[in-house]
């Protein structure tokens, strides 16, 4: 038998063994197929930054035509559910008890000051605990106020036009749907979980049970073990990934403006990176307990927080920005958000893919190196 034929035979046997193992323990299949669907549904419906139905306490101390038109402006806004309170005290109690998220307070002298032409104050209190939400609420309140001002001026027979007016155009996501940018990022997180979890636990189990040593005394070479282990899980992981993409496109109606093949190639590359990460974790951790813990800590949480999926990397402190460069999810999130929302923009795709390729080589190389060393 030629060496090449022997390699082929050993590889085939190894892949067969791994595939059987996958088929026998339903939890691997669950990780690859049930988890993506479950997570995507959960995240897709559960994570939204679009604030709507903000409960607002409306305190009108002296009702008249002006306060009525301003209250009406809040009632007609899609963002608010105004609730009338008689006294500011009660409204404050409601804010403390989390019954409302903000207060709009029109004092008894509102109309008289309005008529005198001296800036009548509209008191606004928001619960600042969730700073992001508070800022968005504030923006919406200002928006209602500006619309009302223009309306009020028109009623008085004047045109109220600001000296400078902004004309924002938001590219790639004109409707500013947060789901369109969150779902592609979620696919990156889900793939990170699948890839790293699958391999780290599985290989750690072989080390724990001592079957890895048994494998190593056979004529099979280390790179053949690695490849034989990676391939079945690669197929499994890509299946899960394709399912996530299908859900994103047809259930959540996220646009795919780039080409499908680019998406597939980039995903295949990222799958290899996460599998490599899982392998590396399993060679460092000797037990399933440690491997599982490390997989959770080293993959899911950084992919969630440091990848740019939710939080803007450019706004993080410089040291943290440096750390994000070693988080593979960072590159994949950039690729996914671009392919889904903007299209095949090659400068973005190529630089990020190059980074992923480099990480794949490093992870697989280190895993290989560690596996060899551990035999001594």
């Amino acid at each position: 038998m030629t060496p090449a034929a022997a390699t082929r035979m050993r590889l085939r046997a190894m892949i067969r063994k791994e595939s059987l193992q996958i088929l026998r323990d339903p939890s691997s299949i669950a990780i690859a197929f049930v988890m993506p669907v479950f997570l995507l549904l959960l995240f897709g419906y559960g994570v939204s930054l679009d604030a709507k139905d903000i409960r607002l306490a409306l305190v009108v101390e002296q009702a008249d035509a002006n306060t009525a038109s301003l209250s009406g402006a809040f009632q007609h806004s899609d963002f608010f559910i105004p609730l009338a309170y008689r006294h500011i005290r009660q409204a404050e109690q409601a804010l403390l008890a989390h019954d409302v998220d903000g207060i709009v307070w029109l004092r008894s002298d509102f109309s008289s000051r309005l008529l005198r032409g001296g800036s009548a104050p509209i008191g606004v209190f928001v619960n600042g605990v969730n700073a992001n939400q508070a800022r968005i609420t504030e923006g919406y309140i200002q928006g209602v106020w500006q619309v009302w001002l223009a309306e009020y001026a028109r009623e008085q027979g004047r045109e109220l036009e600001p000296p400078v007016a902004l004309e924002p155009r938001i590219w790639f996501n004109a409707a500013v749907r947060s789901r369109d940018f969150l779902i592609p990022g979620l696919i990156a997180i889900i793939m990170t979980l699948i890839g790293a979890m699958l391999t780290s636990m599985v290989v750690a189990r072989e080390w724990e049970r001592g079957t890895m040593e048994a494998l190593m005394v056979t004529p099979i070479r280390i790179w053949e073990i690695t490849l034989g282990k990676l391939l079945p899980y690669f197929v499994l992981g890509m299946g899960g990934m394709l399912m996530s993409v299908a859900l994103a496109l047809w259930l959540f109606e996220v646009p795919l403006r780039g080409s499908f093949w680019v998406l597939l190639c980039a995903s295949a590359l990222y799958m290899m990176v996460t599998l490599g990460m899982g392998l590396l974790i399993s060679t460092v951790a000797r037990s399933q307990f440690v491997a599982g813990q490390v997989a959770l800590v080293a993959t899911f949480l950084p992919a969630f927080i440091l990848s740019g999926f939710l939080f803007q990397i450019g706004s993080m402190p410089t040291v943290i920005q440096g750390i994000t460069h070693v988080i593979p999810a960072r590159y994949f999130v950039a690729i996914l958000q671009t392919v889904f929302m903007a299209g095949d923009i090659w400068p973005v795709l190529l630089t990020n893919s190059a980074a992923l390729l480099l990480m794949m080589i490093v992870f697989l190389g280190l895993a290989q190196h560690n596996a060899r060393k551990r035999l001594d």
Partner: protein
Amino acid sequence: MKQTLQQSLGQSWQRILALSIKELLAVLKDRRSRIVLVVPPILQLLVFGYAATFDLNDIPVAVYNEDRSAPARELVARVVGSPHFHLLARIDNDAQIAPLIDNREVLVVLRLGQRFSADLYRGRPARVQLIIDGRNSNTALLVQGYLRSIVHEFNLDWARRHGQPPPPATVEVRSWFNSNLESRWFIVPGIVGLLSLVITTIVTALSVAREREAGTFDQLLVTPLRPVEILIGKSIPGILIGLFEGSFILLMAVVWFEVPLSGSLGALYIGMFLFILSGVGIGLMISSLALTQQQGMLGAFLFVVPAVILSGFATPIENMPTVVQWITYADPLRYFLVVLRGVFLEGNTAPMLVGYYWPMALIAVVNLGFAAWLFRHRMN
């Protein structure tokens, strides 16, 4: 020979103690396990405490200013001079806009047309075009908000200088509990809950599965230990480790991140104890359902990930669809986050938080009970 109640309680206590010590040793005897329990939480707290913020600064911006007049330059200077923005490029034709946005070099392009100052002096609205990268819609909205408030200030100043009347009504915003709207004050207390949950679930989720895999759990069942005693013995290490790590992260939040702790520490600890108890309950339940450690780990993941996502840690529960909001009622982290933020920022005390304590207690009791039942009823 009849035992007194006291004697039997004493013996029971001894058995529980022995089991707890054995469980603690099982987790702590391995150097790698010890490292995994101590190092990652510290690293995560530091990294996430700094990284997890929605506040934007140094947003890269390109300016396309066709009008060299003083007011145009003043407006541009106000944008570029703000800590939120960082001028990356000045461009002079339309063709340069798309590559800058497409390649993510800038988040926003500010375009002032030739007629900007002419319109401004004539009292017609002078238009400023914003081209914003919408790939991250939240960022896009925030960028727009920052620019809107800069332009608003500019408009007020312009009106004042040119003798125009101020707007008839103005909005005066005050934020309670977090007057500078610092995201970090919102996120860091959340991390206390997040990390405590991860630690307790992981420590307990494998504890029964590991013994089942090794076959020692059947041996445990034939010892004089009753299921309740096994349950308590298996819970204690998780509770101790969870409380210890939780306290440490709490200390870091106050000392390192300087988040004000304005409420009662006692109220916080009642919440933390109940929360960790519910985490331990869920972990043990998962563990007794699992036949292998891989299944236990998978179960822990399938619990922790949704529990974090649906807790209101990063995105508000009110934004979720109604059905998903119902699911969040089963998530102990949802309640603990309210307790944490309430005590940290809103100055809450225990009586104000009772409504958040009892659901956690209920979750703990239900899961612990189910776990104890599973000990005997799930065997191969």
